[in-house]
């Protein structure tokens, strides 16, 4: 039996398949479909300092091979998370990681500090890449100096594994990756959504209330793969890859490109059991290729001629 377990920045994962923030709720919603304890981990959805209502409806547009969303970090805030959500999910026997979002450095710090106190949350994912809020993370994620600053600030108050999730809407992803590594990131996750737009030609209006939104799904996979590959080569910290992963083959492509683990996002909407099927598919792949551990595949892309 091929070995699926990995260790990322000191944290053990049963397997490299996790679920992406904003696409898996708090895990509870999937209990009818799968056993979360089989997953490598769960990235729960964005938590901010205070309650946020998110953007107005419509928040979604289907596109070729993907979708746009402009949810806008709707959540009930960190207090509610600690009080209501955490007790319900802390006993899942898998890594529960919280996606930390904010509009100011102080807000990121406040949320991270509170999560630092929660025993059963071993890591946070700093979301400096949400395209859907005006003062949202994306500004932080597109300017290297700001990316470094917010990372370093949170590093001071957060003492467990700190992952930083990058925006793909940049000229040079390695520059941002280096900045957050300098700022103290233990792990880099990428990519968040590409900034896009949809128009209804019949009504001559934008489909989304916010006009632009975040593009996800297989349409963006080539861009995501490229960035994982670039960042893996550029920085010494481990990378968690995502963007359009629909099946085990996609997941293996990301791992070959340099991801130590992957996140399954939009695919959860179409097949809520996708993550579990991907775990099984990876297992089959390793067996078929006679590879004893998934670790051998990380960054193993053969680029010699």
């Amino acid at each position: 039996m091929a070995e699926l377990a990995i260790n990322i920045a000191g944290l053990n994962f049963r397997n490299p398949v996790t679920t992406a923030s904003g696409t898996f709720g708090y895990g509870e919603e999937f209990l009818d479909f799968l056993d979360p304890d089989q997953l490598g981990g769960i990235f729960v959805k964005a938590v901010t300092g205070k309650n946020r209502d998110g953007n107005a409806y419509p928040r979604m547009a289907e596109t070729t091979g993907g979708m746009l969303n402009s949810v806008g970090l709707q959540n009930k805030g960190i207090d509610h998370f600690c009080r209501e959500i955490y007790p319900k999910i802390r006993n899942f026997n898998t890594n529960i990681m919280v996606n930390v979002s904010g509009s100011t450095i102080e807000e990121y710090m406040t949320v991270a500090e509170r999560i630092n106190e929660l025993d059963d949350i071993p890591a946070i994912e700093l979301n400096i890449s949400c395209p859907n809020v005006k003062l949202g993370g994306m500004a932080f994620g597109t300017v290297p100096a700001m990316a470094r600053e917010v990372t370093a600030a949170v590093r001071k108050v957060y003492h467990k594994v700190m992952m930083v999730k990058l925006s793909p809407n940049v000229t040079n992803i390695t520059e941002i990756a280096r900045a957050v590594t300098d700022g103290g990131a233990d792990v880099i996750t990428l990519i968040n959504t590409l900034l896009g737009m949809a128009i209804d030609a019949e009504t001559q209006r934008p489909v989304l209330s916010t006009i632009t939104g975040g593009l996800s799904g297989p349409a963006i996979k080539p861009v995501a793969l490229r960035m994982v590959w670039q960042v893996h080569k550029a920085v010494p910290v481990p990378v968690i890859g995502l963007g359009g992963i629909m099946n085990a083959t996609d997941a293996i492509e990301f791992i070959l490109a340099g991801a130590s683990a992957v996140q399954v996002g939009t695919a959860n909407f179409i097949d809520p059991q996708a993550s579990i099927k991907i775990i099984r598919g990876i297992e089959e792949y390793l067996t078929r290729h006679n590879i004893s551990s998934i670790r051998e595949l990380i960054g193993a892309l053969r680029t010699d001629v």
Partner: protein
Amino acid sequence: MVFKKNIGDLTVIRNLRLNQRHFLLELQSEKPFPVMLPGQFVQAFVKDAPVTFLRRPFSIHAVNFTQNILKLLIQIKGEGTRHLSTLREGEKLNLIFPLGNSFTIPHTKEVLLIGGGCGVAPLLFLAQFLNQQQIKPSILLGFRTKDDIFEIEEYSRYGKVFISTDDGSEGEKGLVVDHSLFQKERLPFKKIYCCGPEAMMKFVDRIAKFHHIDCEVSLENTMACGFGVCLCCIAPTDKGNERVCTEGPVFNTKRLAGW
């Protein structure tokens, strides 16, 4: 009430074209059905369609719990529904079901169901269900024109059916809210269930509010997941933005902000 969600392939046992834009899918499950209530919906996966990416939501139109048959009434709108209209007997359709909340059981027997266009879909299941509670509702159905009308016999089994058409080619002419049922000082209804285009539902709700009649509507929405995780399908309510796929699709209009 919490419903256990299922995911699985159902077999198409009939695909009946009702008219140019509507068809009826009869789907059979090998496994016994879970509890399902009127107002709930399914998320259908459109296989082999080049353009559709996400599942498509459809109300449960009727259920036969003894034979494990579920019916969907579908209007052809775009690529997804066009594709489903070509399903043949014996082919499989993957569904996630049942999803969402349901219409509530009324505390009265004076019940009116109002449906417009393919918003009639959940009302057949609702009428059937009300009959089981010994309630014979009035059923007002609005269509564009005579040729769009279907399944009136079905509805008639469960209550008295009234029809209006935009062009007057059948029943009364005009919108459902123009129907003579409403041309009275006091209406003989204590509860209205309504499903159709949002503009229509808002009109109906205004009548209901005027007459102090309790009104439940099933909201339209564009959905990505359908089971509460993407937060794309929001309606503003008295509790802030709620998920139409989970806290809805049925809402009492009292709770809807801006109605």
